[in-house]
């Protein structure tokens, strides 16, 4: 609290005022607004829940779904002979609850899946009998796969005609599961939540109640006000990302292969994109009631289509092409390439360029469409 007037001042005397240089006044106005909005965020239990707790809960639910059950090994099976006996073996394997059998792909495809860590073991049924390759980095899962394969081979009587299953071991150097894949997606979603949804709701609410109207009656410039709001939310997005990364590392024990600083940088860039989108949309939205469907109409398809939770690999080509261009896709891919694939900033330049383009477009829209009040 800054008190300039003497404490014994008569109530009827107006408080002292001391004008400052215009530029310094603008800087101090921005800083005061930044501090005030951080304070408001901290005091608003709802916003803390939505920006920090909810992502952690979603993370927990997905992680539980994936990790809570017993061991399920991802077993690639490539049948190159297609005899009755080999087909019998594949059918037997598919009956097992301990392995999830992938037969669709070519030998090369399955081998690359094994080396990228998507398979725990690969069974190739050739003319000289079945050969099993295990991923030693996933010892639990590959051991289970080996047991299942041995059992199935014995049961289908193949052991009599062929040599015992030959076993090779590879180590793909990584030990990644669904949680490792999921974390960058959750970070991207939280960043979108902070940018798009909270800005939209907060601003429509502030305008509906005439709080922005009151600010408009002061010498505060819209640009300074927006700068303070953006600054506040970028700080929040960075903090949110950092907290999620810490929880992911300490509680879910994921491995992050890239640079955590790059993760933060991309998350903050993504936050800026969604902030600008949020401001642009809130400029033309009159009430909180109409903000909800708009937010959902934009947010929900992106959540489903951006590959935040599940790989977009199964999408038809045309849909893949369209969803490539979504801002959330760029953010999810950028974060995932750093965290999951260990890429650097140069490797994700496509995603950075995509986010940059979205930032320019939505930033221009935000400045054009921003309004203190609806006429």
């Amino acid at each position, binding site marked *: 609290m800054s008190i300039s007037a003497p404490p014994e001042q008569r109530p009827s005397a*107006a408080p002292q005022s001391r004008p400052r240089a215009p530029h310094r006044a603008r800087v101090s106005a921005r800083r005061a*607004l930044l501090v005030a909005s951080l304070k408001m965020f901290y005091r608003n239990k709802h916003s803390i829940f939505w920006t920090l707790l909810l992502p952690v809960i979603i993370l927990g639910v997905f992680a539980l779904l994936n990790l809570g059950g017993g061991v399920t090994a991802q077993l690639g099976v490539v049948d190159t002979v297609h005899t009755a006996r080999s087909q019998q073996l594949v059918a037997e394997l598919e009956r097992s609850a301990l392995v999830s059998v992938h037969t669709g792909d070519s030998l090369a495809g399955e081998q690359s899946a094994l080396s990228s860590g998507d398979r725990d073991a690969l069974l190739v049924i050739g003319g000289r009998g079945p050969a099993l390759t295990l991923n030693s980095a996933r010892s639990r899962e590959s051991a289970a796969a080996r047991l299942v394969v041995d059992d199935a081979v014995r049961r289908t009587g193949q052991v009599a005609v062929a040599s015992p299953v030959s076993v090779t071991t590879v180590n793909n150097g990584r030990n990644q599961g669904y949680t490792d894949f999921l974390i960058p997606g959750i970070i991207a979603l939280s960043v979108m939540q902070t940018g798009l949804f909270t800005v939209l709701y907060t601003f429509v609410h502030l305008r509906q109640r005439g*709080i922005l109207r009151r600010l408009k*009656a002061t010498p505060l410039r819209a640009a300074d006000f927006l700068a303070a709001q953006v600054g506040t939310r970028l700080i929040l997005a960075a903090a949110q990302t950092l907290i999620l990364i810490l929880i992911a590392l300490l509680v879910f024990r994921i491995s992050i292969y890239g640079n955590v600083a790059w993760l933060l940088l991309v998350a903050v860039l993504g936050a800026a994109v969604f902030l600008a989108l949020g401001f642009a949309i809130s400029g033309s939205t009159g009430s909180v009631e109409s903000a909800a469907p708009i937010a959902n109409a934009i947010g929900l398809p992106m959540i489903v289509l951006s590959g935040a939770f599940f790989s977009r690999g199964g999408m038809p080509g045309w849909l893949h092409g369209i969803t490539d261009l979504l801002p959330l896709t760029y953010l999810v891919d950028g974060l995932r390439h750093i965290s999951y694939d260990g890429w650097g900033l140069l490797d994700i330049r496509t995603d950075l360029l995509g986010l940059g383009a979205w930032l320019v477009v939505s930033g221009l829209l935000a400045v054009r469409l921003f309004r203190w009040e609806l006429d």
Partner: protein
Amino acid sequence: MSLAEPAIAVEDLRKSYGDRVAVDGVSFTVQSGEVLGILGPNGAGKTTTVEILEGLRTADGGAARVAGIDVLRNPEAVKGAVGVQLQASSFFDQLTLAELLELFGAIYGVAVDARALLRRVDLEDRSASEVRRLSGGQQQRFAVAAALVNNPRILFLDEPTTGLDPQARRHMWDLVRSFRADGTTIVLTTHSMEEAELLCDRVAIMDAGRIVALDTPAALVDALLARGFRRPPAVQRDATLEDVFLDLCGHDLRDGDEPAAAAPEGGRRRRRR
């Protein structure tokens, strides 16, 4: 009246929203230290006129100078020179009254003694409260405190007593009188004839975007009587229903949160919160 430049000078001010003419050639001046009331039915153009003078809205034509500033050319400069209490506006939640006043001080680039400002409007004991926890009268008083942050010589009060109970309304009147005693120029819009008569040096009556009369309250009444108007004699009484109400309930403020009220219903209201 002094010969110095008037605090506010408005000349043929015009503003339309699409086809609807909101302000249709309004002219008036307000001398320094004067209290001007603007009366008129809803939609008469009172708020639009006032908001143009506050720099909140653009005008389509005419001229207006407020505190020596050309409002139409330089609306942003006016905002720093005047204090405003707006209709249908509010303040951030999650900030205390003191924090809000300091934030406004930072926006105006002035150091603020929040406690002294709150004392000025009788809210010193609520300095750690949020605006939404205040009663209607307290919220209006806080809006006035926020209008004083930049120590303005000109104050715009847009329907400051609308929706207030008689006690809170009288309290606001006392506040306005104290500003007038300090020499502050005040433009006040209201629906209450009584308020205009009690507080205003002169009254402008607006209808359909025009000023249809502008004079002291006494002169306006005299002019009406001179035109032969006679009030029906049957309703002449020495007291009004409001006098009855205030006699029964007292003049003390009933803000619900005021510590003074020891009345049973005041205690009940406090417990419910």
